């Protein structure tokens, strides 16, 4: 039996996880990027005072069609601006004033048998689906799996961090559609083994099992960060992956978007975001069109006063923002607003040697030793401690009773490893 590594986080998903998903539909305007960051040349296809329909491509990107973004609303282009986005960096954006949308005509539901791998890949490209787990276009992932092979496909709905419950909200409302989307993904990638990984309480897990079937559900352990999202070895037959098999991860919302793109011909225009934190009177999951600003989202959740802290992402890895004029884009699944009562800059004390950082490190590193050597400037000895294997999950910083920012120091150590000696050689040369 393997030793459990990781941090135990106190779940604070209630009441958002129990409430139905709210819909944010009436917006005065949205801010959308012309394209996601790319090295290719971006040529805007919409201009000032143009009217755009929902699903219209905002730009063409030379040699890189999957970086282009579709409009999430019907409206009038009223301006252009540049924004600094916490997930994507500097983005050149278009401002669209929303207009009432005409109801889309009913599309006859096609039979799933007619979807070939090429057709599915094309649909993912055209709908502009972006995986919320890592902000990578789904079509890129599909191409990678087709080219390099994939042994097992997992919909990662684990949400091990304390506040977010957006994946659960989507699964609760559209479990069958998500599973169908996963089947289509597996068909496109040529994978025969797949499941949905969750970390749910007994009652919620049983309810979900009844809807999608036990073989398609995998309950992970509850230590942060979750690294095993699939059974390994032969014990579980076709529901497990061989030790050497590559596991492909995809988000719940990307699967649902693929289902909608294939069966309803809808573009990827919305996402579900968990809005929580002590500054939010009613924490809930909200379905938001891409391009809605954080200000609009917080106002929708009855946050009247400006909170002290707003964090895009979760407690462990999220980014604090300095402005609320930032659009919601794919990859954003949680928004936290805190007051100084809950969140304040932690005091830092000397290391008491408790060893919790080493116990919580899922990569099996010694954060305390890396920090000690880095602070003592023993850079030449850092390489043997494999600081480069740190993935920045921040579990060590979270569990440290002395409040030492271990993860950020390990990150510095990664960068500093051997640098001093390289510099010396350079200067001698």
């Amino acid at each position, binding site marked *: 039996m393997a030793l459990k590594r990781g941090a135990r986080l106190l779940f604070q998903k209630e009441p958002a996880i129990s409430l139905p998903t709210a819909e944010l539909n009436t917006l005065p305007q949205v801010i959308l990027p012309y394209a996601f960051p790319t090295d290719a040349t971006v040529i805007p296809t919409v201009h000032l005072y143009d009217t755009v329909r929902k699903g219209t491509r905002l730009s063409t990107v030379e040699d890189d069609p999957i970086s282009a973004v579709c409009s999430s609303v019907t409206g009038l282009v009223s301006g252009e601006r540049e924004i600094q986005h916490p997930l994507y960096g500097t983005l050149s954006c278009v401002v669209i004033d929303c207009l009432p949308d005409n109801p889309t005509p009913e599309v006859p539901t096609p039979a799933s048998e007619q979807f070939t791998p090429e057709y599915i890949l094309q649909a993912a490209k055209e709908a502009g689906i972006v995986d919320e787990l890592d902000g990578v276009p789904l079509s890129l992932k599909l191409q990678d799996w087709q080219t390099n092979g994939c042994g097992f496909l997992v919909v990662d709905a684990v949400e091990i961090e304390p506040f977010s419950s957006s994946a659960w909200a989507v699964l609760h409302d559209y479990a069958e559609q998500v599973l169908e989307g996963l089947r289509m993904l597996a068909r496109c990638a040529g994978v025969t083994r797949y499941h949905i990984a969750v970390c749910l309480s007994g009652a919620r897990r049983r309810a979900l099992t009844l809807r999608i079937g036990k073989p398609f559900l995998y309950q992970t352990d509850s230590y942060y960060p979750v690294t095993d999202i699939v059974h390994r070895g032969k014990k579980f037959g076709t529901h497990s992956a061989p030790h050497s098999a590559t596991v492909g991860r995809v988000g719940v919302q990307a699967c649902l978007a693929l289902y909608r793109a294939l069966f309803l011909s809808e573009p990827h225009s919305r996402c579900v975001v968990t809005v929580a934190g002590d500054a939010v009177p009613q924490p809930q999951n909200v379905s938001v069109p891409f391009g809605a600003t954080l200000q609009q989202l917080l106002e929708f959740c009855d946050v009247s006063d400006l909170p002290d802290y707003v964090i895009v992402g979760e407690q462990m890895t999220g980014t604090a923002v300095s402005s609320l004029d930032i659009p919601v884009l794919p990859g954003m699944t949680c928004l936290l607003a805190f007051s100084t009562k809950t969140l304040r800059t932690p005091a830092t004390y000397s290391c*008491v040697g408790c060893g919790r950082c080493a116990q919580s490190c899922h990569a099996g590193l010694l954060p305390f030793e890396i920090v000690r050597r880095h602070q003592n400037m023993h850079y030449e000895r850092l390489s043997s401690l494999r600081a480069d294997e740190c993935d920045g999950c921040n579990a060590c910083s979270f569990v440290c009773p002395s409040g030492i920012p271990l993860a950020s120091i390990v990150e510095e150590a990664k960068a500093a490893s051997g640098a001093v000696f390289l510099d010396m050689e350079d200067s001698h040369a």
Partner: protein
Amino acid sequence: MLKPSAAPHLRQTQHPFYQSAGVLLCLAAVTGFSCLCFGWRPFLLVLIGMITAVLLELLCCAFLVRRPTILDGSAAVTGALIGAMMSPITPFWVPAIGAAFAIGVAKMPFGGFGRNVFNPAAAGVAFCAICFPTRLFLYPDPSLNTSLPLWDTSSVITAVSPTAQLSSGGTTSYNWISLISGDIPGPIGSAGILVLLACAVYLFMRHSASPLAFTSYIVVCTLWAALFPRADISAATSISLELCTGLLLFVGVFLLGDPITAPHYSPARIVYGALAAILTMLLRHYGRFECCDFFAVLLVNSFSPLLDRVCWQAVRYFSHIREVLRS
């Protein structure tokens, strides 16, 4: 205006006094148990150790132009530990000297709390044991059940401790009940095995001490005592005498479990405890002093960083082999 914050945004930070408070509470229980047998003298010895350690740390902080660190409680813990490792009839100036040595030599020159290489309390008592052995290893007879005089202890009836009897190769007349109830001559901290075990459980639950180091220490000591008894006695008697007399259990709970000087990596703590046990038993067999457990702690303290690295590399090496065999 939104404020900046670095991930992780909420943390499990604790003031260091949280750890120290748990240890002080346990030491109060151990001292209280000794006070039941000997009156107020053990309490005063512990108090003098604490006051000296705290005052000296204040003085060192002032001398080094540094923010006072007494609020973390580590100085008080060091002083109290030194007091608790003394005999109840030790003169009051001995724990004061021990505490001064601990803070002034073993702690502050290394950078203070969290940076000391050797356990300051073990260093302080070791210094006293070398300088004043006759003051440290002379114990009152607890079977008389009389309160000790506070100042003049020359008239107190003393008794030979079971550890001294074993060191000289003789057998002891103490039975199981007197060993467990603490009705044997010994230092303040050796009284009350059950109290010490309760303290150990409490400290482990608070994460103030390492259960891994303690467990491996006790297991190896037990095995050693069973295999190599110091006198012509049965294995069971040897185990009970070795574990329940002297400072073995006290050192295992309070000094060996000190997270600052012990290895931080869990598997290394197991090796650390085992190494400390081997050194303790070797010193008990061949050492100069009847109570030498703190010397073993000082010796293994110097191996802590090495044990961390070696054990970590060994674990990674075996994990790698396991992965290769699996695939």
